[in-house]
């Protein structure tokens, strides 16, 4: 099948989630005997390297009207690319950009959409894709019956491939509408690593007793190159910003390592983090429900244990 991957970028660089989507799209093309192509709106620095993820051709469109992500404008451009490329499967990352555009494009192309996909499509009998449901507590196989299929792949669900292919960059001309959405300001999140894309997440809860005690959590996160997260009560009490709240009503994440400090592990919290590959729990209450969902645990006081973890990590990394 002909595959088209939407390449998202921020601050001049391709998002890691889009490299995952590119690798995923290339695998679909390989499985179904088609070609993997991609589209980028704008000019991030690293587009030449998309060949490594198996992208053979990259349609690139640059235009002044693309400053704001206006899903109406983007959708109409992507429709023109799909028509030109004859794409049958369109892959987005299910990040905030993908969430804004993919549903619109699905309607415009009368394409079935799987949002939150976590595995490659099964094409042995029709076209079904596995996605998370019930906030990661279960999964569903979604059968797509339309001619064109759209998949929004959850971040951290598919490994980035590093091959040695090359990509051909093809400038693309399209009709670009004037945006109706005007950006008047922006703020960057405090963390250096985006929460949904982070390999390691260090998270803390009410067990830390107050916002002034986050320094050691920040130090551990820095040391591990991790993103910071928190539980809902912590965000509700404004100890930490809302965009760090992970859980059923916050952000759902799937890092390789999730370290939970002073979080009891209510079912709503677990729903947002249970796709983490390895979970480490530090809690002084041995009965905390989180231990049942954890891979490794320490029953102990966070204020004693966390500094020890920091020292041990420094030692193993050779930082004294």
């Amino acid at each position, binding site marked *: 099948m002909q595959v088209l991957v939407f390449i998202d970028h*921020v601050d001049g660089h391709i998002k890691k989630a889009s490299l995952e989507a590119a690798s995923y799209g290339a695998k679909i093309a390989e499985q179904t005997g088609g070609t993997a192509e991609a589209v980028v709106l704008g000019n991030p620095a690293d587009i030449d390297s998309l060949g490594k993820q198996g992208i053979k051709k990259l349609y690139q469109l640059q235009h002044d009207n693309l400053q*704001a992500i206006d*899903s*109406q404008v983007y959708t109409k451009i992507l429709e023109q690319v799909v028509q030109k490329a004859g794409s049958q499967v369109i892959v987005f990352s299910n*990040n*905030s*950009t993908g969430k*804004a555009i993919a*549903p*619109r494009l*699905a*309607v415009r192309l*009368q394409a079935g*959409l*799987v*949002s*939150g996909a976590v595995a490659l499509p099964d094409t042995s009998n029709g076209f079904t894709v596995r996605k*998370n449901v*019930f906030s*990661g*507590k*279960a*999964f*569903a*196989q979604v059968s*797509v*019956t*339309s001619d064109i299929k759209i998949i929004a792949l959850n971040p951290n669900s598919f490994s980035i491939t590093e091959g040695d292919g090359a990509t051909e960059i093809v400038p693309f001309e399209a009709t670009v509408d004037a945006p*109706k*959405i005007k*950006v*008047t*300001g*922006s703020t960057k*999140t405090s963390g250096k690593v985006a929460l949904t894309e982070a390999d*390691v997440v260090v998270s803390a809860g009410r067990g830390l007793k107050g916002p002034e005690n986050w320094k050691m959590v920040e130090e551990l996160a820095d040391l591990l190159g991790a993103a910071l997260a928190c539980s809902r009560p912590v965000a509700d009490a404004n100890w930490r910003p*809302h965009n760090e709240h992970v859980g*059923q*009503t*916050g952000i*759902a994440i799937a890092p*390789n*390592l999730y370290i939970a400090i002073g979080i009891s592990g209510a*079912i709503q919290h677990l729903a947002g983090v249970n796709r983490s590959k*390895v979970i*480490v*729990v530090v809690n002084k209450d041995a009965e905390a429900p989180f231990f049942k969902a954890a*891979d*490794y645990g*320490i029953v*102990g006081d966070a204020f*004693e*244990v966390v500094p*020890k*973890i920091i*020292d*041990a990590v420094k*030692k*193993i*990394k050779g930082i004294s």
Partner: protein
Amino acid sequence: MKILVCISKTPDTTAKIAFTDNNTKFAEAGVQWILNPYDEWYALVRAIELKEKDASSVIHLVNVGGTDAEPIIRKALALGGDEAIRINVTPTDPFTVATQLAEVAKQGGYDLILTGKETIDYNNGSVGGMLAEMLDIPYVALATNLQIDGTTATVKREIEGGEETVEVSLPIVISAQKGMAEARIPNMRGIMAARSKPLKVVEPVQVEPLAKAVEFGLPPAKAGVKLVSPDNVEELVRLLHEEARII
């Protein structure tokens, strides 16, 4: 201003997740149903706050669902919706739901359409964008703040790497998430008033899904926690380094 808030019925956040009929259906036995938290806490409450500032506003609620959805519709009316429309069909997938909602939205001529960022059961987050495309109006996803001044909306939204503030003219569709408003509890007066507020039932239009969940499953259970003594934290880091190969 005429506001439409799209509301869904979802299992309670603590509901046991299981499946029946050969894993093709969610097991509803014993499940407590609630108003989808994103629809309630953020979309609906923000609509109510806007109406409190501009009393000439009206809030219509719309739900795609059977009679079993009426308790959550009444709750939304108790919180502060003025009237409700129930489209009488069991929801199956975002595309057919959006198609049903679009019919109501077209007839109502709304200035502002609010949805939650996703439902907590199927986690699609697709209805808002699909509806906006069907209506051919702008869509601002994952909003954390919304101000209305005349016919201009100022919206703060989540983007990759942070948040941005955007300005857009009404009519628009917005999907709301945490930050947008504070959860409220319906008061007795609201609950009493909700009983007599209009709840109109309309029949669905004919539409076929393009993508549909055909089978469900549960992830494999964890092997069990490996506990490390707080006096031997180095052992934990060693395990993460050598066994899990993460650090």
